[in-house]
């Protein structure tokens, strides 16, 4: 809502600098976005009179004027404008003056003739013909006396002379206060904020004799969506420009003046916050206005010249044949006020907010009217608005208003009430405000306090309970005058096991040198192809956004892997030589028969860089598992028929699934060459995804101290020859089982293929460390264990390497 401060001054006198006014209004609840002083850029421009005009000696189109600017001696100005002949009163930009858009005027010579300034056009003063309808667009702005601006004083500042000295304040009005989308509403707030009187008179008009019912009939077919429809008829209409004061105020509120009748409806809407409509009665066929739902397939061409298709839930204003306006949104093209209009019908009606909102949204046209109606106006507002419009017609002398009006009223007039309990309010706010003071605040805002109730004035639709009343008191008392206190009573916060787990996971990731990333939860479905997911993969079933910003962010991710791939790709593209990254984030998995998807937490790890290989990502996973209390995981190569869907993203021979007791904890590996290509990553990159809830289910976080060993350990180094295809995990398993409870550790220290080893074989070397808690192990005990190991290995086709 843009507010003209000149207009505001009609109702309330606030003697404050504009900055303070804005600040105080903001702090009492009417938020000021910004303010603009009109004509701020214009300086040293005065009213002048052209005394004489002679042709320029060196030019066909220039003339030389002597201009009286109230300084005794006239000054000489050269102009090229065609509409200066002598005798005109004009705006004169003197030497050293400034104009809008940073224009500066200096004296100088034009084709050899001295010019001491410039005669200004409307445009040069930042104005249009809407502001001064008597002037012309192409040429000097020739001032004419009009009501409110009868006499010009030569040398007077132009801003004062023609009233371009208003200040416009832009308010951000919240949706609960449609009453503040009006000059009077804001005046009321200002009066309460600054504790000054509010002068609003009830509008009255005299009217001429005549029965409106002979001119017009009104029928409301849907009294739920239109609770009230009031109408007045103006005859012998004289269409013309509005007076200066009205144009000024409209301009100050950001509305373009059109003609007196259109301006009157806008003026009333801005002043009272209640939208009005004016019809040319010629176009109300059958002399009857019907408020009804649109019929299927019905269309209307609105004032803006666009043909719009209506649907059955939309409310229209119709005559006996056709819709003439979309109720509360916009009028129809053919019912508007024309230059030859003779009889005008004023409408002041009240339409259901929700209905107007849906209609406006569906038609894609939010208007000043709809933005007010949709917040829920009170039908009581119709009377004052209609009366004010009629009053203005009489004031402007632009028509004869019929004394009788129509008022179809189905509204509930019982006022809104809420409990008034000053003690409760003080307890609720933590204040100590006297009951008298509270009542004073409320009355200032137009409320009535009686019998323990706060009775709302009709324009306040938002006060329903005592908390609402408390807000009214609090905002006038000043939120910042409330003493800050601390919550009483102790409370012990609990960190949940999930939060603990996640924090530890993050700490581990940082400790092993991975940087945290944060990616969007929505992705492009193209990612499924990029990671080569099979067509029938369940991961292709996603939560789909019906109104996405773009295809790139149109589905909720069912796998976190593509998010990591994108970030790896971006970093590669930015020529970052290496990357070690992790993200803890959610996946969104639709569940059959459930309204909402599952949102499990996942850990994604990604890395690339010089020397980085599969064992780096595996090492990271091993470290995480150990830190998170998950021991003895099974690592199974993915191969070509892996049960985990995302295995498709990986190199089948260089990726693995991590499980524990059959629970899949995650997948890791080198990205498939095609995946790398799809993401345009030019180096080998490694990714892992770990399932956090699954990890938690097998994690043992309780730790018990084990006594340090009293007896020395015995170690034996073994080099074993076996088929290349045998995974070392199998060898290890066999060793562990064979050594039994004296085993302390099995450490692989070398894998060798090549010289001295037969084709298709490999040599694997282990250090086996054994220890007993009952005494020092004898050589015999150790040798016996080794024998068992060799026997077990033999079953796997592995034997001791002969050196």
């Amino acid at each position, binding site marked *: 809502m843009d507010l003209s401060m000149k207009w505001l001054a009609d109702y309330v006198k606030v003697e404050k600098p504009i900055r303070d006014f804005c600040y105080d209004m903001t702090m009492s609840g009417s938020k000021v976005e910004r303010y603009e002083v009109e004509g701020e850029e214009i300086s040293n421009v005065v009213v002048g009179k052209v005394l004489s005009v002679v042709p320029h000696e060196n030019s066909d189109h220039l003339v030389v004027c002597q201009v009286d600017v109230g300084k005794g001696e006239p000054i000489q100005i050269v102009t090229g404008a065609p509409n200066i002949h002598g005798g005109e009163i004009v705006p004169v930009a003197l030497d050293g003056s400034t104009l809008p858009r940073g224009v500066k005027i200096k004296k100088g010579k034009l084709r050899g003739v001295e010019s001491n300034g410039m005669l200004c056009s409307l445009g040069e003063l930042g104005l249009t013909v809407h502001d001064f309808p008597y002037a012309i667009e192409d040429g000097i702005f020739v001032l004419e006396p009009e009501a409110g601006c009868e006499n010009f004083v030569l040398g007077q500042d132009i801003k004062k002379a023609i009233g371009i000295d208003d200040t416009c304040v832009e308010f951000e009005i919240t949706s609960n206060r449609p009453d503040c989308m009006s000059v009077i509403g804001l005046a009321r707030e200002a009066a309460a904020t600054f504790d000054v009187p509010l002068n609003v008179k009830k509008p009255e008009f005299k009217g001429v004799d005549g029965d409106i019912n002979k001119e017009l009939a009104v029928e409301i077919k849907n009294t739920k969506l239109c609770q009230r429809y009031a109408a007045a008829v103006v005859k012998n209409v004289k269409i013309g420009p509005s007076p200066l004061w009205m144009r000024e105020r409209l301009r100050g509120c950001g509305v373009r003046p059109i003609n007196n009748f259109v301006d009157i409806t806008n003026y009333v809407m801005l002043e009272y916050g209640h939208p009005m409509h004016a019809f040319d009665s010629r176009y109300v066929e059958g002399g009857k206005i019907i408020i009804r739902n649109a019929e299927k397939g019905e269309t209307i061409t609105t004032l803006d010249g666009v043909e719009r298709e209506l649907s059955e839930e939309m409310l229209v204003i119709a005559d006996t044949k056709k819709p003439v306006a979309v109720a509360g949104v916009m009028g129809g093209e053919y019912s508007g006020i024309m230059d030859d209009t003779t009889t005008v019908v004023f409408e002041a009606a009240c339409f259901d907010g929700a209905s107007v909102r849906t209609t406006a949204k569906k038609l894609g046209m939010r208007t000043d009217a709809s933005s007010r109606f949709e917040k829920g106006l009170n039908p009581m507002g119709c009377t004052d608005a209609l009366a004010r419009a009629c009053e203005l017609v009489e004031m402007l002398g632009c028509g004869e208003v019929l004394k009788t009006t129509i008022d179809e009223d189905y509204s509930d007039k019982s006022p809104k009430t809420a409990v008034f309990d000053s003690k409760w309010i003080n307890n609720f706010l933590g204040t100590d405000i006297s009951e008298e003071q509270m009542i004073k605040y409320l009355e200032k805002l137009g409320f009535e306090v009686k019998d323990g109730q706060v009775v709302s004035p009709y324009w306040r639709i938002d006060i329903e309970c005592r908390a609402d009343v408390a807000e009214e008191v609090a905002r006038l008392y000043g939120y910042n005058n409330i003493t800050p206190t601390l919550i009483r009573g102790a409370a012990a916060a609990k960190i949940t096991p999930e939060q603990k787990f996640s924090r530890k996971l993050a700490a581990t990731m940082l400790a092993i040198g991975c940087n945290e990333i944060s990616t969007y939860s929505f992705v492009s479905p193209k990612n499924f192809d990029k990671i080569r997911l099979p067509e029938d993969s369940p991961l292709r079933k996603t939560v789909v956004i019906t109104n996405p910003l773009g295809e790139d962010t149109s589905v909720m991710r069912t796998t976190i892997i593509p998010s990591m791939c994108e970030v790896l790709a971006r970093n590669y593209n930015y020529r970052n030589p290496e990357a070690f990254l992790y993200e803890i984030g959610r996946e*969104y998995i639709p569940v059959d028969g459930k309204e909402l998807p599952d949102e499990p937490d996942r850990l994604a790890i990604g890395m690339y860089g010089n020397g980085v290989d599969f064992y780096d990502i595996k090492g990271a996973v091993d470290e995480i598992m150990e830190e998170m209390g998950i021991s003895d995981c099974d690592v199974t190569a993915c191969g070509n028929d892996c049960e985990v869907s995302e295995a498709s993203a990986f190199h089948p021979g260089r990726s693995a699934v991590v499980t524990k007791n059959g629970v899949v904890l995650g997948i890791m590996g080198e990205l498939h060459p095609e995946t790398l290509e799809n993401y345009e990553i030019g180096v080998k990159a490694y990714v892992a995804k770990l399932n956090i809830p699954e990890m938690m289910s097998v994690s043992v976080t309780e730790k018990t101290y084990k006594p340090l060993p009293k007896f020395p350990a015995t170690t034996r180094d073994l080099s074993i020859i076996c088929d290349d295809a045998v995974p070392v995990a199998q060898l290890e398993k066999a060793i562990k089982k064979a050594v039994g409870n004296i085993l302390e550790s099995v450490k692989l220290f070398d894998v060798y293929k090549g010289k001295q080893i037969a084709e298709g074989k490999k040599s694997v070397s282990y250090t086996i460390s054994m220890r007993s808690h009952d005494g020092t192990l004898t050589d015999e005990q150790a040798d016996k264990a080794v024998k068992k190991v060799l026997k077990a290995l033999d079953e796997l086709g592995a034997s001791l390497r002969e050196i």
Partner: protein
Amino acid sequence: MREALEKIAASAKEQLAKVADIKELEELRIKFLGKKGELTAILKQMGGLSAEERPVIGQLANKVRADIEQEISERADSLKSELSAKKMAEETIDVTLPGKKRSVGKLHPLSIVLNEVEDIFTGMGFDIVDGPEVETDHYCFEALNMPKSHPARDTQDTFYINDNVVLRTQTSSVQIRTMENRKPPIRIISPGRVYRCDTVDATHSPLFHQIEGLVVDKGITMGDLIGTLEQLMKRLYGDDCKIRLRPHHFPYTEPSAEVDVMCYNCNGAGCPLCKNEGYIELLGAGMVHPKVLEECGIDPEVYSGFAFGVGLERIVMRRFGITDMRLLYENDLRFLEQF
């Protein structure tokens, strides 16, 4: 004999002074003091001395031995330290060469600040509560006093999954789920991702993070709300930090406020950062609307509460001087490694 002893003493002194290394020193020790050494040889002749001469010469011999021993020990010490100094000198390196780093990963700036905020609130007795991001219209809007046609819905451009399911536009949905499941006293914060149909630019992202707070108990006042927010801001921005509340409207709180924090750049004096306001808008807050309490089965006659919601990105960007929100989701290492 006396002359012989004195000769040995003099010769030992002279030779020891010339010793250049430990090995030579040991040779000398054996030469003079060893079983077959010069001094031992002399002492062996002691038997031939008269009873008067024997103690005198014996004393002298002992003194000579002690002197030599002392000399050797001193020499040994000085040789050792010379040797050590030489070795150190040889081993000297350029300490200005770069160190071998064991790189620690960096937390994302969003996490850095979120952790701080979580710690502040757990310190004040708030639990941290999670909720779904894909949420029903009921929890995101209806239960928060925003029925389908409510105009306030326009201010939160919503991503829809279907008529009944949305991507949550605010973490307030977690408030409702919490109040349905817990009885007062309730003190929670619920941080998390929220979604709005905003086109990406330097200050907008269709996905961002909010931290929502909720307190419900008997006798909770608006003063408590202000006090709690003041604590938060002082902990985040220092003890001198001030806050300012402006009346506002949210359907789910009454009274409602927008909260500004004193510009930490100019301490309220006004500067380009705060657009000369001296304060920066930071969060929305208010007393929980009685209808919302009722909706969750909490009697507003008995209990009251407050709630607040703050955008994490805004705090993070101000904290680190980040001017483009897109950087937070681009995950360029050159950016991430700065924190």
